[in-house]
């Protein structure tokens, strides 16, 4: 009876969200898929060209292929560093050292600062360091840009994964730790055989978040290097943006790139969740 009464209230409860969801997601998504097979400059003059856009992306666009590998390498390096540092700091902060709350507050803070602002903050610092040490600037080589973004992402995201890891470590039952100690396990064994398997759900979440974030990184890239030198430090998202808005007549190719990008991110997300979920301990 409850449900039947509630059904009448559909326009009030679900309709506003549904309409906004159609405007903000479903229609643009459907149009995006369709337009990736078209040649167009505005949405109204679309002409069906089949798979031609996709062929051009993979055959003639060397910048896109470069951005793809550059992004993949960047994602691997930043996922590993962020999670290793984040987990280590979380381990230290669960030892009951004095001032834990202050440390936690400080480490989490950069997470709330936006990508554009972060990019310009680090541009100042990295340019200062690079000009002193190598007598160059950040835009001199794509390698500087790469490590600049890795450092920036670490600074921003370590605090975030740290919070999630702390929650995970605190949930490990103390009986398990005591039992392991009584059985004579060393600190390393306790970490590897008890703590790590027990915080596997947190590891799944953190690698998922950092992986998708690094793949989708845009603001920081735009502010820090904007692709310099000559689009060599461009990540995928920025490459797609430049294809759309940097040159006229390439909108169809830009949309095709966006579809490829979506498929890569989606496949990675699903594969990663599947792989790490298998390792989780059932309690």
């Amino acid at each position, binding site marked *: 009876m409850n449900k039947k009464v509630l059904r009448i209230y559909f326009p009030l409860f679900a309709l506003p969200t549904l309409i906004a969801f159609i*405007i903000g997601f479903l229609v643009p998504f459907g149009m995006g898929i369709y337009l990736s097979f078209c040649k167009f400059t505005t949405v109204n003059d679309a002409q069906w060209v089949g798979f031609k856009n996709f062929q051009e992306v993979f055959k003639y666009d060397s910048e896109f292929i470069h951005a793809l590998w550059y992004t993949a390498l960047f994602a691997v390096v930043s996922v590993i560093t962020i999670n290793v540092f984040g987990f280590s700091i979380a381990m230290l902060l669960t030892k009951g050292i004095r001032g834990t709350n202050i440390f936690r507050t400080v480490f989490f803070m950069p997470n*709330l600062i936006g990508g554009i602002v972060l990019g310009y903050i680090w541009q100042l610092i990295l340019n200062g360091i690079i000009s002193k040490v190598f007598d160059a600037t950040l835009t001199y080589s794509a390698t500087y840009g790469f490590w600049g973004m890795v450092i920036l992402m670490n600074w921003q995201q370590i605090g975030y994964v740290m919070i999630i890891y702390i929650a995970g470590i605190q949930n490990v039952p103390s009986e398990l730790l005591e039992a392991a100690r009584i059985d004579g396990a060393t600190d390393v064994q306790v970490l590897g055989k008890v703590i790590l398997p027990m915080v596997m759900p947190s590891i799944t979440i*953190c690698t998922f978040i950092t992986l998708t974030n690094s793949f989708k990184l845009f603001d920081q890239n735009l502010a820090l290097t904007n692709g310099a030198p000559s689009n060599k430090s461009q990540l995928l998202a920025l490459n797609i943006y430049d294809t759309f808005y940097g040159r006229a007549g390439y909108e169809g190719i830009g949309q095709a790139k966006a579809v490829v990008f979506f498929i890569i991110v989606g496949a990675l997300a699903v594969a990663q969740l599947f792989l790490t979920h298998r390792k989780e301990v059932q309690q």
Partner: protein
Amino acid sequence: MAVYKPTTLQKGDQLPPEVQALVKKSARKKSTSSRQSPYSGLWSILLSLISVIYVIPIVLVFINSFKRKAYINKSPFSLPNAKTLVNPILSNYTSGMQKIGFTSAFVNSIIITVGSVFVIILCTSMCGWYITRVKSVFSTCMYYLCVFSMIVPFQMVMFTLAKTADTLHLGNPIGIIVVYLGFGAGLAVFMFCGFAKSIPIEIEEAAMIDGCNPVQTYFQVVMPILKPTCISVAILEAMWIWNDYLLPSLVLDKTKYKTVPIAIQYLKGGYGSVDMGAMMAMLVLAIIPIIIFYLVCQKYIIEGVVAGAVKG
């Protein structure tokens, strides 16, 4: 010779002094061994060092916001002296605020963030509850579409979303709220569904029997129970919307409306050479409200992130 008398201890009984000493000793031993590791001091020093590294970038930007622009790139790490200090002391701030219209950008950012978060919380919590309670093809589809929308990168819909918003005239701070509701609905509906499932249906049935219609049931019974989730969702969405650059820069009519990230990017894009002094000052102005907000609501922010991560 003392005769041994078997007694049972009661609360408040005095223990013999030698037993008391033993208990104390073992308690002390236990507390030191389990709480403090031998390297505790070392770890404290290490963590303090890392914290300093964490704070330095923000301090540096703050220091540089008082220097003349020519000296910022040349010597970003030195403290300002009589030669490098701007005169008057706040001139970087005043010139930067004038150049990019910081005040109006700040007001726009506040309107968009507060408005969107309020609308998202209200609409998606109702929708999430409706989807959980009414099992139909529609609600199942809606749920999976929301989950799906969470993994779609923004670049996928960027161009077409901008066109759709343009056709519907949503390029102003109020219209963009609809866009944020649509694109942010995925995560919010997903989280509200997960939490609404755990509310016992008996509570709602009791309210119905007492004569509440669904609207009253929702606002007087369900919404209060969902409050912790509302706070989590509000914080996650607010962090995203306040810092978002790409979506508003494509959807908003940029000649009329700017948000804080757009204004800062404009400082770089609008002029040939960047005025580093104004840039530093604007960065400081962009960071200060966030830090104040963070220090005030720290507890909720950290809880919100953990809750969001566990469910997301």
